[in-house]
């Protein structure tokens, strides 16, 4: 159903036009040119001065946009690679103990850079020094999620990303930290779906709602949850789907139960039949696209999917 509100249509078009302006301003920005290496700092500053930028802003921009030097880039690479250091093997460590851990990093010293140049030692073998770290950090969970990808990039032979980015299949993987306990979905109809017993799940009729019907879906952990847990929702129809904005409909208890409630109209869905996929897991690891949920099925390591079939009537 297309919108019939010309005011909203005009507003959406105006936002699009503003985004085009933003792109142009970024493209024309001398500071962006500095970051890209297309302009030196003095030339960028001169152009900014001509454009009326204040001294304070120019001073900030000179520092912010100057291309990162070798040490800074090395520190960034180490920060990303360091995630591999902190992945527990299959038989070691308590993955849940890593929950919420923040791993600090620091830019490399000149001595380290020199040593690395000589030995080409793997960054993954270098110990961190959290005590001397300034503010380079990555949350442990995020590192865990990125680790597999980092391995792919390390192994990737090209100098620049190309069409062969899809390196799935036999790509190396690492253990994923931060497991979350099993969640059980309780719908307002009292029907339940249990994880780990997919084949035994009862076939349930779709829940029928009208737009003003209130609903309540609760995801309850079977064990107490440690660390941050979040939920995202997707409306699936066949092989496609849309993310749902449920932030305002979601509340979480101290024990980790997540309640999604409101009226069906709050989901912004047209009348029809949908499968609502509630995806629960670590916030940084949750899928952002319905295609990921469709592709990865019921559970995908750091997150779990609970589904409820609904019919929204006119």
């Amino acid at each position, binding site marked *: 159903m*297309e919108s019939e509100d010309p005011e909203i249509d005009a507003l959406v078009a105006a936002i699009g036009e*503003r985004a085009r302006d933003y792109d142009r301003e970024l493209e024309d920005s001398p500071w962006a040119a500095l970051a890209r290496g297309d302009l030196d700092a003095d030339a960028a500053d001169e152009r900014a001065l001509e454009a009326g930028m204040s001294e304070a802003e120019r001073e900030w*921009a000179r520092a*912010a946009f100057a291309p990162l030097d070798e040490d800074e880039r090395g520190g960034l690479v180490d920060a*990303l690679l360091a995630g591999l250091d902190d992945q527990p093997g299959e038989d070691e460590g308590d993955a849940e103990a890593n929950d919420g851990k923040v791993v600090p990093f620091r830019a490399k010293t000149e001595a380290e850079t020199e040593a690395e140049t000589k030995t080409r030692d793997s960054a993954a073998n270098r110990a961190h020094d959290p005590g001397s770290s300034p503010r380079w950090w990555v949350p442990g969970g995020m*590192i865990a999620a990125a680790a597999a*990808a980092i391995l792919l990039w390390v192994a990737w032979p090209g100098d620049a990303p190309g069409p062969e980015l899809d390196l799935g299949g036999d790509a190396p993987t690492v253990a994923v930290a931060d497991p979350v306990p099993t969640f059980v979905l309780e719908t307002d109809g009292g029907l339940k779906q249990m994880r780990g017993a997919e084949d035994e799940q009862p076939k349930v009729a779709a829940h029928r709602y009208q737009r003003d019907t209130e609903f309540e879906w609760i995801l309850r952990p079977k064990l107490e949850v440690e660390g941050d847990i979040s939920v995202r929702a997707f409306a699936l129809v066949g092989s496609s789907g849309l993310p749902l904005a449920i932030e305002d409909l979601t509340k979480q208890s101290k024990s980790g139960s997540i309640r999604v409630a409101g009226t069906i109209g709050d989901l*912004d869905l047209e009348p029809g039949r949908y499968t609502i996929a509630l995806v629960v897991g670590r916030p940084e690891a949750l899928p952002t*696209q319905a295609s990921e949920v469709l592709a990865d099925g019921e559970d995908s390591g750091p997150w779990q999917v609970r589904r409820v079939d609904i019919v929204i009537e006119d």
Partner: protein
Amino acid sequence: MRALVDRLLPVIQAEVGFALLRGARIEGRDPRQEVRDFSQEVFVHLLSQGGKTLRSWDPERGRSLDSFVRLVARRQVAAILRSGRRNPWSDKPTADEDLERGMEAQTSHGARLESRERLDRLLGWLHERLDDRGMLLFQMLYVEERGVDEVMAATGMTRDAVYAWRSRFRKLVAKLAAEEGELGSKKSDAQRQIPDSPDQRTH
């Protein structure tokens, strides 16, 4: 990894720095550190979950890698700032507070519609509320003004799916605009009820 960082960092650094500069969030902070932190967050987002975000880029669909990464970085920075997650400016006004200030200066619907600041806010909220795929579709439909057939070809989506997204964009914008209006009304009401409030700002 180093090759990847060298390849994408200039694009990400420009996007991050520009977003922070535009947001006037430059006081009292080490710009170098802030840009590095945010750039690192963007890289982690690109590489998380087996590099799903980065691997979702398909050069056959007509978008350059730089353009793709720019969009991801823009959305990611907006989300970080909006959520307050690792917001280095947590002592600064929140987005809602900024919004309230903005609303005070708006006097008519026509003025609001034309307000660049308002459009920036709405655009920022879209970046924050849509996922990467949603922002790519918004970019194609409303920023690049591509036709539905072209979007279908570029994304492999059905016509109905593209129309569903267009409808969703409109509803989301309508909702954001309504929320903005409600916030402005509440602010106006509060000012009428408490004319001597110390929080009242004059212009």
